[in-house]
Structure formats: structure tokens, C-alpha cells
């Protein structure tokens, strides 16, 4: 801390303060300032630190799906090979797709919106709005960090599945990758919608959880969709969770991905993303 108020102008150390007179034309209208790559990088690092330091927020999307995977994977009935799938089991065709979908949904629908709602509530986005950085850069950085979290969660689940539970890789890895990418966009769009409609950080978590459990329950997270009434089972297959499980399962089996699942994911992305864009407020 500066010890005392300087008494004469000569005493002042001004080398660390603005030097306006260095500007080429002090009176001229300033040029537009666009944050460069350095700003994007700095903001992404900042968001990564925020997410990384929120330990509790990391445990759920990384830990819970793996726990579900392991508990299901130890069930002896899952080792049974399903005919016509080149030696794949229910673990490969159902539990693993479910696990990966959970990772994506937990990050996209619960974690990301809670950060954005917190930023809006506390004025972080408002403060950024008076700098050359755009609050939209925070959204991009959060999405990037969310994608990194998903990659970590997916990698963890796959390592556990392949190394310990004896799972088989997907028959069509590229289709699986594409379906996973489409799942990420759909879940992020739902998450942005949650962030857009939630008035407070607490309600963002609540709405995110309800959305997660709703699409999860209809998508077969707690048991086969076949047990649901027909209308709900069909709806669950269109919603992003069930659609992702179906599409990933098809990619693992090497059969054609159901058109309804792809359409469901694409429509979820467009509708939820559009609504989020229309309703999102920076403060």
C-alpha cells in the first residue's frame, strides 16, 4: 500500500498511471477496440479456473456417470452378447451410451447455466459489458470449458469401461463422435435456455436439475423406456436425452442411427437455442 499521501507533485510516482498525452492525438475520437486473441484466451483460462476451483461442481459430472457405469457394469446379465451386433453386450449398447449422455447433460444442463446465472445475478456480465470484451465472450469461454469438461468425463468413462468392464469400442467410431457432438450442441442449447429463464443462480440449479431429471427419466436414465406409457416413451425418444442414448447405441451396434433421434437432437438444438437467444438477458 502507498504509505502516505504525497505532498508535492514531484514526490508522486506516476509511472504506473495512465499517460493520456502519449496518445497520438489527445483530442481525436478514439479507435474502436476489439479484444484480440489474447483476451479470448485470458477469458477462457479465467472460466477454466472458475470451473476448476468449484470442486463440488466437478464431482457430479465426472463422478456420477462413472458410478452409474460401474454399478450397472458389474451386473452379470449385461455380459450377455446381443445377436447381430458383432459381439457387443447391453453394456456397450445401452449403459455406455447412457453414461456418456449423462456426462453431457450434467455439464450442459446443470453446471453451465448455474455459472451463467451467477454471473448475471452478481453483475459479472454487466461489469464486462463496460469493457471492450463482450459478455458473449463469456458464453463462448464457458461453452469451451464445458466441452473440455465433457471430454474429460467421456474419456474417464471410456477408460473405466474399456479397461475394467471389458466394453467394446463402437462399431462406427465416427458416427459415435458425430452423434456425441450433436448431443453436446443440443444439451448446451437446453442449458442456455435454463440460464435464460432462471431469475436467480439458485433457481438455475433447480430448473437445470428438473430439466435433467425430466429428459433423463423419459430418456431411460432410471430404467428402460419400454416400461413407460407409449406416448411418454415416444416423447422421450425425441427429447435430447433419449435421442442421444438411442443414437449412440446405434453407432455402437453399427446399425443405422434412427432418423427420429437425429431430428430430435437437431430440433432441440434449434428450438432451445433460439428461445435462449431470444430470452437471454445480460443483467
Amino acid at each position, binding site marked *: 500500500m502507498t504509505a502516505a499521501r504525497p505532498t508535492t507533485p514531484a514526490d508522486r510516482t506516476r509511472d*504506473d498511471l495512465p*499517460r*493520456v498525452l502519449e496518445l497520438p492525438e489527445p483530442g481525436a475520437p478514439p479507435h474502436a477496440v476489439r479484444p484480440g486473441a489474447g*483476451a479470448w484466451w485470458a477469458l477462457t483460462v479465467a472460466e477454466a479456473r*472458475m470451473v476448476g476451483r468449484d470442486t463440488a461442481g466437478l464431482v457430479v459430472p465426472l463422478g456420477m456417470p462413472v458410478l452409474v457405469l460401474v454399478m450397472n457394469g458389474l451386473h452379470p446379465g449385461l455380459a450377455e452378447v446381443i445377436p447381430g451386433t458383432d459381439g457387443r453386450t447391453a453394456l456397450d449398447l445401452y449403459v455406455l451410451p447412457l453414461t456418456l449422455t449423462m456426462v453431457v447433460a450434467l455439464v450442459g444442463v446443470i453446471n453451465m447455466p448455474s455459472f451463467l446465472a451467477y454471473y448475471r445475478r452478481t453483475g459479472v456480465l454487466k*461489469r464486462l459489458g*463496460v469493457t471492450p470484451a463482450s459478455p458473449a465472450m463469456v458464453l463462448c469461454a464457458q461453452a469451451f470449458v464445458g466441452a473440455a469438461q465433457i471430454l474429460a468425463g467421456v474419456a474417464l468413462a471410456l477408460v473405466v469401461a474399456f479397461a475394467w468392464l471389458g466394453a467394446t469400442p463402437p462399431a462406427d467410431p465416427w458416427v459415435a463422435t458425430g452423434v456425441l457432438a450433436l448431443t453436446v450442441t443440443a444439451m448446451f442449447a437446453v442449458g442456455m435456455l435454463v440460464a435464460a429463464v432462471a431469475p436467480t443462480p439458485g433457481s438455475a440449479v433447480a430448473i437445470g436439475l428438473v430439466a435433467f431429471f425430466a429428459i433423463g427419466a423419459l430418456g431411460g436414465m432410471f430404467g428402460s423406456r419400454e416400461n413407460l406409457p407409449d406416448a411418454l416413451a415416444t416423447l422421450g425418444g425425441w427429447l435430447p436425452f433419449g435421442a442421444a442414448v438411442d443414437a449412440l447405441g446405434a453407432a455402437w451396434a453399427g446399425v443405422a442411427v434412427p432418423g427420429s433421434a437425429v431430428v430430435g437432437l437437431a430440433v432441440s438444438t434449434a428450438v432451445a437455442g433460439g428461445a435462449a437467444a431470444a430470452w437471454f438477458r445480460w443483467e
Partner: protein
Amino acid sequence: MTALVAQHLRKTYRPRRRGGAPVVALDDVSLSVGPGEVAGVLGRNGAGKSTTVELLAGTRAPDAGRVRVLGLDPRADRGRVRGVLGVQLQGASLHGALTVRELVRLYRSFYPRGLAPDRLIERVGLGPSRDVRFEKLSGGQQQRVSVALALVGAPRAVVLDELTTGLDPQARRSMWSLVEDLRADGVTVLLVSHLMEEVERLCDHLTILDAGRVVARGTAAELVDRAGLRPTVTLRTDDLGAADLLHRLPVVEHVDAAGPRLTVTGTAAGPDDPRRGDLLHEVGAALAAAGVVATETQLRRPTLDDAFLALTGSPLEDS
């Protein structure tokens, strides 16, 4: 070119209760700050200070009126204004889990040129806390971070909303010297405050807001004059003729006697009146000439506090 201009700003907010009348935050508020000037906006809570800041910063649009920052419209010319206007917002928060240094570096990265983060952190007195997370800082330390972030882009104009709220007296003085340094570097400063001492000390001129309207503007001395307040001299004497003697002086308006204690009020002279400020001297000379012994003689000039009270009808400290 005027650095900061607000012309006839009007801003209403939606009523708090359904069907209620809209809340008028600002009603025909104008102010202008020249390049390199330090100007103050003074008012109690709810007077419209923060709304004025938000309109100048361009985070809100006025219902009517015009805002110019270095000749630019802060909403239409967002990109150009953001690079040269530093803003400290009331109640705006920051990434809580980041440390002081991480935050200052982050905000520095938004600007093509600016101040060295580490030296700026030292300058606002946060050197020892540089690696502490923002959410763990005290209110006064958080306040200093927000001041640092307003300055990190080496702005040509700064709007500081409640610069020293929550700071201890030493930190407050350090912030004041920071503002003096900004002035020395030709940075235009708009200081929003409810501290009389602060604006009186730092500001070239000030605008007093009350209930969304400008009630007075001018230098601190002009505002005191405009309020029509007079200097008084208090003294103690046992001489029974002293009151009459003093009352006959041309610089004296009236004399109140409470036992041996006299309160001598000067005439309502304008700022150019040669007699102004001589009340103490005139009273002293008259008493000496008459051989009256007086003790505890004290001159009390009206302060900006008195002027604020007179101009708005209630004291600032009630806010």
C-alpha cells in the same frame, strides 16, 4: 470537445408494484465535464447518481436526452467508447474464485494498451493480497480491485461510482491521491460520491442531484455562496456593550447574545464583496478599539454540508 456530456436525461423504471406509477429516476439531468477536469456528482441514495453513471457508461439507454463520451454515443459507438472509458460500477461483481492478480491481468487483456497489472495492484494498495481470491477479500479490498479494473486500460475518461465507500481513512486518502494523479495525467474523472470532504477536495466542479433532478451545480465555493449562507463569529465576553457595538459594524447582519456568549452573523455578501471573509478581522478590530476583552473567538464559515442541506432541504448524512 467536452469529455463527458449528459443533456436533458430522463429515465423512468417500471413500477415496483403492478399498476403503480413508473419510478422517475432522472428528470431533465444535464452535466458536462471538460477534458482533464475532475467533476463530482453529489446526492443521497436514490437521488439518481448510479442511473446517471449507467447512462454515461451506456449500460442503459435514456428515455430521452443525449449522452456523449469524448464526442461519441456510448451505445451506438460502443466499441470506440469502451476502449477509452473506464467505469467503476456500484454493485457489479467479479469472477469470485479468481485472485486479484488474475482479475487485473484478465481485464488488462481486453485493452490494446494499458497499465502494468502488478504495479497497478501495488498502487491501489493490494500488493499483499495479490494472490487472494476476490471472494475472500474484505469489502474495502474488493472496492480497490474494482478501481484498479476501471484504470487498467489506461482510459482517457473514468467514471468512479462511490470511489471510497467502505474504505478506511488511510485507504481513502490513497485513493484521493490516485485521483490527483489521474488529473495530473489529463484523465477526465467523474466522481460520484456522497462524501462532502471527498468532492470538495478533489472536484473542479460538482452537480448536486436530489430526487432525480439537478438542484445546483458549480464549484464548491459557488454552491456555498449560492445557498446564501453567512459566516459567523462566536466569542465570549463579559462586556455588556459588546453586542451593540458589533451590531453597528457594516459587515455584521445581527448579533445573538446568550449570556456572555455572542454569535455574530455576517452580512449576505456576494463572493466579490471586499468585506467578505473579513468578519473575524472586523469584529476583532472593533472589539480591540473599544477595549473589550473577548475570548474563545472563532470564525465558522458555511461548509458544503451546510450548502447541501440548504439546497436540498435535508442533510446528506441521513441517507
